[in-house]
């Protein structure tokens, strides 16, 4: 079953073409890495999928439908920046999420927070950047969504937490959902990926199964990615 489809997607910011004729399909049960250098169009693509931007041309279909209220209830999205109220405690933020999203699993969120040594009574403003990122990821992963979209979830966290986050993604992942994870820290995540979408200068340059790529090039996704970028330059 196709969960996400992009057809002939174009996005221009004034004269600048941020995305050019993007065609992708993501089926259910897949963990997909969206890889690309800075400014390649990853976040633009993610924002289009989340209906935060409108395409210049082409369309996005979530579960066969145009993005809207319904698609937002199906997608759990981790943006690149935190959006919490700084004076709220973690506990209040949890309540807020539980109130907002029908599919929010409060118990799961509480367990994950505990595993990560985060205090529910602490205010967001009193937390470090890394801690805030962890809270945000816990909230996003605690929804029972159809499509999870994580925009650079590993940037600010330490390696031990990175491992924990990847394990959390794996253990909470179900085969009816799909997960798109955008990052440039490829070597950290490549073991969990089913598929790889490489994007450069607004165009999809590669969309293949991770193990098929390793078999073909006899090297890591990370190395393939670096080489691909070098050749494109």
């Amino acid at each position, binding site marked *: 079953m196709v969960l996400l489809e992009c057809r002939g997607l174009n996005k221009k910011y004034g004269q600048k073409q941020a995305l050019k004729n993007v065609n992708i399909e993501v089926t259910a049960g897949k963990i997909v890495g969206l890889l690309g250098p800075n400014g390649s169009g990853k976040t633009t693509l993610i924002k289009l999928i989340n209906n935060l931007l409108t395409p210049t041309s082409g369309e996005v279909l979530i579960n066969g439908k145009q993005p809207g209220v319904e698609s937002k209830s199906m997608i759990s999205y981790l943006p690149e920046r935190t959006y919490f109220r700084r004076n709220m405690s973690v506990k209040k933020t949890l309540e807020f999420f539980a109130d907002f999203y029908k599919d929010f699993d409060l118990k799961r969120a509480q367990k994950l927070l505990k595993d990560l040594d985060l205090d529910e009574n602490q205010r967001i403003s009193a937390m470090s950047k890394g801690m805030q990122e962890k809270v945000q990821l816990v909230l996003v992963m605690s929804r029972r969504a159809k499509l999870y979209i994580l925009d650079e979830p590993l940037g600010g966290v330490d390696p031990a937490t990175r491992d924990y986050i990847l394990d959390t993604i794996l253990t909470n992942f179900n085969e009816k959902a799909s997960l798109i994870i955008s990052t440039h820290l490829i070597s950290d995540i490549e*073991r969990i990926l089913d598929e790889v979408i490489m994007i450069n200068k607004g165009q999809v340059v590669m969309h293949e199964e991770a193990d098929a790529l*390793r078999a073909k090039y*006899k*090297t*890591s996704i*990370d190395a393939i990615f670096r080489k691909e970028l070098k050749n494109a330059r």
Partner: protein
Amino acid sequence: MNDFENSTPVYLQIAEKLAIQIFGGKLAPGTQLPSVRDIAIAKRVNPNTVQKALAKLEEEGLIVTERTNGKFVTNLKELIMEKREEYAAELTRNYEKKMHEVGAEIRMPKIMWLNDGAAEILEKVEQMEEKNEERSRRWFF
């Protein structure tokens, strides 16, 4: 536990690890395998990857699926032995290649790691070598 190499398909690495456990008897014939999900969590990889690894082992006959009960290590011991020999042969080839690369001589194992038949052959080879040595020594003097 994150001991995978990123440069070869992860599913092949998982299949190999499981096969080694079957060859070595850690997973005895007839043993039920953990669920795909449990293996995925233990190995810290994607369930789809584990599924693919199991499909490969099943294709080779090392594991079998019982319709409702899950996956088991095959009861066909000869098949396990046969596949083990193939694997051992490949290890040997790799070893020989590496030794060739470093310019060192292939070493015969002192411990009998093969079955009795092979051990006997090995013994005979050693005896012959000794004889040869003796002969060449005699010839030399």
